[in-house]
Structures are given as C-alpha cells and as structure tokens.
C-alpha cells in the first residue's frame, strides 16, 4: 500500500481564543487521506494551553505530528504547505482534494470558502452568527483573496514553490503569498466550499466589485434554499427544469 501524500500546516493564533485553536486543531487531526505535520504558533501566555490542546487532540490520529512554535522552514517531507489562522476549519477531505488539484503544473490550489462571522462569548466557544459564501474566480489572485486576513487557510502551496520562511503576522502572510503567487499558476479546486475562514476583516462594508461578487455568490446559494423551505414542490420542479435546460445546453456545446 502506498503512503498517503504529506503536507505541513502552520497554524497561527493571533489572539488568545482557546476555542479557535481547539477547533482548528480538531479539524486538522481529522483530515483524511493525508500525512500531516502541524506546527502551532501562539502568543507566549497561551503556550501552555496550546501544548495541552495538542496533547489532547493528537490521540485522535496516528498520521499527524503536532509541535509548538514557528519552525525555521517547512517539513522536509511535505509535498505542500498551508498557513491557517486559528478559527479556520475545513471539511475532512479538504487537504487531500487540494493536494490532488496541485497536479504536475505545481499550481497553488485555492478552495471555495465561506466567511464565518462570530460573536465572542466569555468562557464558551464563539457563537456563529452567519456563514456567507465567497466568490471564487477560476484563477484567484491576491487582490481577490487577501481581503480576508486569514485567506491563506483556503490555499495549498506546492512545497517546491513555497517561500522557505514561515509567516506569522498579517503582513507576513501577504508578503509570503506574493512570493508564492509570483512563481507560477493558481487554480481553483472545484466543488462546494471546503473551508470556513473566521471573518477578521476590520471593515465589512461593500466597497469593491469583489465585494459585490461575494454578495451575489451568497445570494445565488441562499435564494434557492429560501424557496425550498417556502415552497418545496415548486422548488423541486424548478430544479428539474434547470437541470434539463443545463443538460440541453451542455449537449449542444458537445
């Protein structure tokens, strides 16, 4: 049996929010079909909690190695690398699917994502108020992506073209991404959103064309769900009609 592909995820906590770290770690140790090295960088007063969380969660998986601190460079055996901000969570197949999308072109894989707006609750996990879908173009550029400070969580960079240094701060994330993006192609992983990013934007107003695209992408998802709840039979008929028309269009194109 061949061994699974390997990746290194550097998890950065910018704030002392225990549940953000706990959830990101839980998401990482339950990734399927991938061998993982996870390094965890946290503010110094938070290190003891992070150590305990790693000890607690590493028992869930035999194929994840967890360590505290920022390593000087990426794990030597990693085929691809990612940087997550604490609070980022992904579907269990996210990393294996993203790895498969890198291909021989060594493209940076960018997955569709949602923004999660949360409210802090003292002593408890943050309460999730809203999840909204983000627009993703076929080859997402940094202007489109970097409006989310935690945007690297939805990207997987082939180790061969990843800058060797490991980023920590928001500015370092942007600088590191600029270096990685300049080295070759970027591809969008097909499918529904696989990553939820904490919404850490300071300004959430709609200001650019990209913001409008995000609003429309979310509306495109929510409107059918709304109709499905209000009028399930009519929704089912419209869905059938949509699929028939799409089938006709595709048949004509072929």
């Amino acid at each position, binding site marked *: 049996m061949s061994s699974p592909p390997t990746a290194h995820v550097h998890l950065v906590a910018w704030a002392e929010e225990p*549940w953000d770290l*706990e*959830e990101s770690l*839980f*998401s990482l140790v*339950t990734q399927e079909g991938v061998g993982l090295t996870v390094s965890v960088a946290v503010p110094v007063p938070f290190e003891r909690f992070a150590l305990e969380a790693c000890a*607690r*969660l590493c*028992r*869930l998986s035999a194929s994840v190695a967890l360590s505290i601190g920022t390593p000087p460079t990426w794990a030597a055996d990693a085929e691809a690398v990612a940087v997550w901000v604490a609070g980022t*969570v*992904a*579907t*269990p*197949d996210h990393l294996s699917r993203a790895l498969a999308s890198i291909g021989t072109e060594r493209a940076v894989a960018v997955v569709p994502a949602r923004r999660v707006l949360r*409210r802090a*609750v003292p002593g*408890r*996990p943050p*309460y*999730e*108020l*809203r*999840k*909204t879908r983000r627009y993703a173009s076929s080859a997402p550029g940094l202007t489109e992506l970097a409006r989310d400070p935690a945007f690297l969580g939805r990207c997987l960079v082939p180790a061969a073209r990843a800058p060797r240094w490991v980023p920590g701060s928001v500015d370092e994330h942007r600088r590191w991404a600029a270096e990685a993006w300049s080295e070759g192609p970027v591809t969008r992983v097909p499918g*529904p959103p696989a990553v*939820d990013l904490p919404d850490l934007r300071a300004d959430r107003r709609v200001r650019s064309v990209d913001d409008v695209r995000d609003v429309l992408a979310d509306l495109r998802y929510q409107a059918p*769900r709304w109709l*499905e*709840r*209000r*009028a*399930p*039979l009519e929704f*089912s*008929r419209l869905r059938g009609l949509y699929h028939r028309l799409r089938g006709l269009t595709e048949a004509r194109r072929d």
Partner: protein
Amino acid sequence: MLFESSPAELERLARSLDAAELPPDLQVEVGALDNSPQRSLQPVVLALLGQGTYVWTGENRGFGATHNLGMRDAFSAGADGYLCLNPDAVLHPRCLEELWTTATLPETGLVDARTFPEEHPKPYDPETGETPWCTGTALLVRPAAFTASGGFDEALFMYGEDVDLSWRVRAAGFLLRTAPGALVQHWVEHRPLTLERELRVLRSAAYLGRKWGDDDFASRYERLFRARAGRPLEFETPPSRVPAAASQVADLTHGVRFARSRW
C-alpha cells in the same frame, strides 16, 4: 447504533472514545446495537470496545426504535443519561464532559453536541444553550425526559425522529440545550442525496406535519413525495395528532429545518 458500518469508521470512533477526557464522577459504558443483517461486525466491535457490550438486533429497526431499546436497558439499569451516537461520528476529547456538564443544568431533558465542521444552522442561546430542538448525531437523553416522552416515535424510521422527540420533551416541560463546547465531527454534506433518502425525508416531514397539527405543511410534502416517487404517500402507522396545547412547541414555518436558520 450500527448498520453495516465500516470497520475503519468504527476504529475512528473507538479511538475518539478512548481519547475522551472524563470528570472523575462520570462513568461511561459503551454499547453497540447492531441492525446489520449479519453479526459480522461483532468481533470488530468487541476488539475495539474492550469492555463494551454488543447486541445484534437481527433486523433494521431504524434509528428511533433501536435507541428506544438501548434507553430502556440503560435506564432500567440505573443510568443517569443515554447518549445516542452515530457510528460515523468522531468525538472531540472534551465532548462527553461538556455534554454531561450541560445535562446536569436544571430542567434539562435533552442535550445535543455541536456538529463539526458543519454546525447545524438552528439557533441556540449562547449563554444558556437553550435550543428549539436537538439533533440526533450525538444526543444525550436524561431518564426523566425518556419516561415523560416514551422515547422516540418508532413510526419514524429515519429523519425527523429527533425533532419529534425534542418537541415532545419540551411539551412535557423540559428544556433542550446545545452544549457548544461539545464538538462532534459528523460530515455528511458530501454524500449524494439519493431518491431513497430524499423520499425518507419527505415522508418524515409529512408525518410530522400531520402529527403536530399543520395539515398545509404535511400536504406540501405529500405532494412533493408523490411527484418524486410517482405514487401517493401512505403511512404504515398513521400519525396520531398531539393535543393542541402540546403542539404550541412545534415550529413548521421553516421547512424541514424546523427552526430559524442562522445561515
């Protein structure tokens, strides 16, 4: 409850049960109720569980009927709580402790864990955990709530039985809570919606509508069932309507989500 579960899935679950951090006053006994057509999972389960128990039910009784069997046994043996747990779930190490801590809050009948990575969009009160209904993925039932409600409605084979139990437990005067710190990984969004599964959802929706006094709601899903199945919907056991006073707790204004959706 098992039904032709994969050994890899069971190993993942067993590993998470092994990793559970429990308070000293909480004793947990693990039992597997297997609805598979053969006993072939028995050696796998016993090897994984160590001291746990394995019961082969001999037929696929459905979610509710199987857990009713488990709850009757557990509560008659003096258990203070019973956790309905899906075999394709993975518990966070603190999940059981968080569930139990929440279950001991006053007037609590049911507690559900927070599903991960896709949290259920139904709301809960971030301070008290109170929620309009509890999902069945990892659902802790207190004995008094079981006694007052009689357990799951066994006419619901799959889907909606957790909603129905929740409403009956609420109607009996208990509170339902979500334990936000109790994470349970249960990822099903990637599974295709087969016609069989869709029809089960529609059947359960129509059943709940009839049972909880909203005939318009039931008719909408009966019509959709007919359109999708090509035949009218018939219930083996027709739902008996709950008293009007009890039906106040039901919310059928949000389709099959049964509560306001946060997203």
